[in-house]
């Protein structure tokens, strides 16, 4: 069972990576507004990007 000495640290590092991703998302404000993005993704957006708008005009 000596493999435990390697496997558990690896598992902890993986957990740490997940945690780091979560902390990054929180810091970026991904959890600040939970309502608007939920409806925003429903629109079929053709021209939300400003540069595309310029091309069309």
């Amino acid at each position, binding site marked *: 069972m000596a493999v435990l000495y390697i496997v*558990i640290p690896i598992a*902890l590092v993986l957990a740490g990576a*997940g945690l780091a991703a979560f902390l990054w998302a929180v*810091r970026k404000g991904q959890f*600040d507004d939970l309502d608007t993005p939920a409806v925003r993704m429903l629109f079929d957006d053709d021209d939300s990007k*400003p540069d595309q*708008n310029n091309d069309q005009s």
Partner: protein
Amino acid sequence: MSMNPAISAGHKADKAGEAATRLDVSCTHCDLPVPRGLIEPGADTQFCCAGCRGAYEVIRGCGLDDYYRLRDAAAVDTNARTPDRLPSGFTSYDTESFHKLHVQPLTSGLCAVDFRLEGVHCAACVWLIEKLPRIVRAAAGSDAGQGVVEARLSMRQAVVRVVWDPTRVKLSTIAQALNTLGYRPHPAKGLSKQALRRKEERKQLMNIGLAGALAGNIMLLAIAQYAGLWGGIERQYDQYFRWLGAGLGAIALLGPGRVFFRGALSALRARSPHLDLPIALALGVGGLAGVVNVVLGRGDIYFDSLAVLVFLLLVGRYIQFRQQRMADDAVSLMASLTPGDCQRLTPEGETETVPIEALMADDRVKVAPGAIIPADGEVLSGEAAVISAMLTGESAPQPVSRGEAVYAGTQVVGHTIVMQVKTVGEQTRVGRLMSLVESGIASKPAVVQRADRIAGWFVIAVSLIALAVFCAWSSVGVGVAVDHTVALLIVACPCALGLATPLTIAVAIGRAARRDILIKSATALEHAVAAGHLILDKTGTITTGQMRVLAWEGDASLKPWVARIEADSNHPIAVALANDQTDTADSISIDVEHITHHRDGVVADTPIGRLCVGSAALMQREGVMLPERWATPASQAEDAGHTPIFIAHDGHIAALARVGDGLHPDAESAIKQAIQLGWRTKIVSGDRPAIARRVGAAVGLAPEQTLGDVTPEDKLALVRAAQQDANQKGPVVMVGDGVNDAAALAAADLGIAVSAGAECSLTAADVYLARPGLASLIELFTLSRHAMRTVKRNLALSLGYNAIAIALAAAGLITPLLAAILMPISSALVLTLAVGVNRPRAISHASDTENQD
């Protein structure tokens, strides 16, 4: 973008016959019924006013018809908003002082501004508003290029963040575009406070993430050890797991768990009981004993239970914090809706629009009818009336003329005045009242929440039991005694208590918010339970604060004509007469020429003859006789606090309208219910005692429970006296809307601001009733009663659980495995009860029918 009655006149004349057959035509833009005179037969689109037509044309012109499809798909209950008429436009948004106050420059020359929008209600609004770049480009012409770079809307807060290029498009153009769509923009206030709290919220969320990850991993390790209890485990691996568990556990306790130690420390310093005390005791003793046991290689460790404890408690607190923050944000954003600019006259006599903050003493300011006076000062020219309802509670408008003093926060009606500013900001009467609010807050009695009070006793009891258990077991051996005492302290941690209370409160606050009751603090719920003193303001709280025609005596066929000639004025009495029209089908859209507005009435030549509408003084000037038959009801109306308005037709009085501040339709039943619930109810008003008593009688209160002529200072004193009343049981609740109530709201155990309240009353109050009327007050009482009953039941359950656990620990039967099983079970049980089972049934009947969720 103004409503033009002339548009309709022609249609009415020749198409009236056809239109009468199709009465229920709804507006293409806002879905409201279209007045008969405006229906265009055969047209695909119908509009109820020029504003809706304008909004529709803008949306169509930009190729954004999808808005209507999306809106219908969303099946929202509210309609698209009608754009407001805006006399002044948004020119002040381009001034330097406005930019200094509200605009943040970004890198690369762009600017950002946050607007609180009126009328945001559904997904289609998000779609339309975020198309702002396209709409502004169409409005400003294509040479403006990409003026607006981005518009991002936060739906819940109705705040849009606009990023634009100031060299290409003016902010006023952007604001005008939003207004045309029916979303009137206001510069958002209170966002810096919000940003601070958002930071705090993010920190809490990160702590929860860390605690969750640690708890999960420690549990995985612990499972290996528990398996070892049966299958056997080699000593080296057992030690390995113990060290790993202790290491992760120490991070959990010292990292995310730090808040409990800090809370306990400040509770000790303040010498007030707090729930953090027993929690910190369990975490501290458990952690310390665990580390010692790991180092010595003997005894039990409880890190899995402790880490889960930290995680769950943090989650409970976060949810409560979030609910309270959302209610508070919504209320502080309400403040954005109060106007922030005024018309200053330059020395050359031109008007410029500046933010109120830029005003100085001796400036001359023009105040248009309907606008709020921005500072204390003196009238230089113009004769108008002033409504001081917010400031003093007086319901009837008072006439002012040259040389008279006017005060900030009051509203001008009738005519434009020019005033000289004497004092600004904190020196004004409103400013001085605000400092009274500060003193009200300072005198507010400190409240210890029920859970905290219990925690105080809990700590003492648990400490005594722990001591007894230690003494009892020390005869067996000191090591055994320490182990059992540690186990006892850990299982005695009131985690169910610490989790259940914040969750129940969060659920109640969320439920209240869905009923338009915004609760800013948890203690508000506790205070609304036991009946105590209920002190109500009159103007704007029990009454609507708006003038209304209360009675009409005489010739009713004149009503539509009176409504027509009063339609162009915004004097409150004129508005009351114009709105008295119940049936739109009778409305007269013919242009009436020669309408002359006087200070006390209107004279007009109409097709049916000469009409005079106004006070007795106007009748005298116009040479109309005032026979005894009309003088008696007029003086009766005056005695009751109403304003009698005479209507003279061709020189003879034909009708009399009683105009006054009407009751909210639900005020009487709400106050009756409050009295039934045991509240000692009182009305205090800044208005004349006669008027206050009349309103009191109308809602069923005795004259001695109705006080008139009450100053803001008196209201504060009344609240304090009620709090010190020796006989009183229960809290002192103050309900009000105006600046004059703010200090009393702040000092009361529970301050409740009602719909359309003044900015500072919103700040001072704990609860804001966003729906007009007093029915929400009773809902709040019922809701609190329910929430507190659930809290009590959960307290009993969790204390019962703790008693059993303590008994087991005292008997020396608790092992880490048993603790790991017992703790989550109790938490899950209480959690289910807090969230799932406490649907308030009494309220569901009352209002869920209209608000299905």
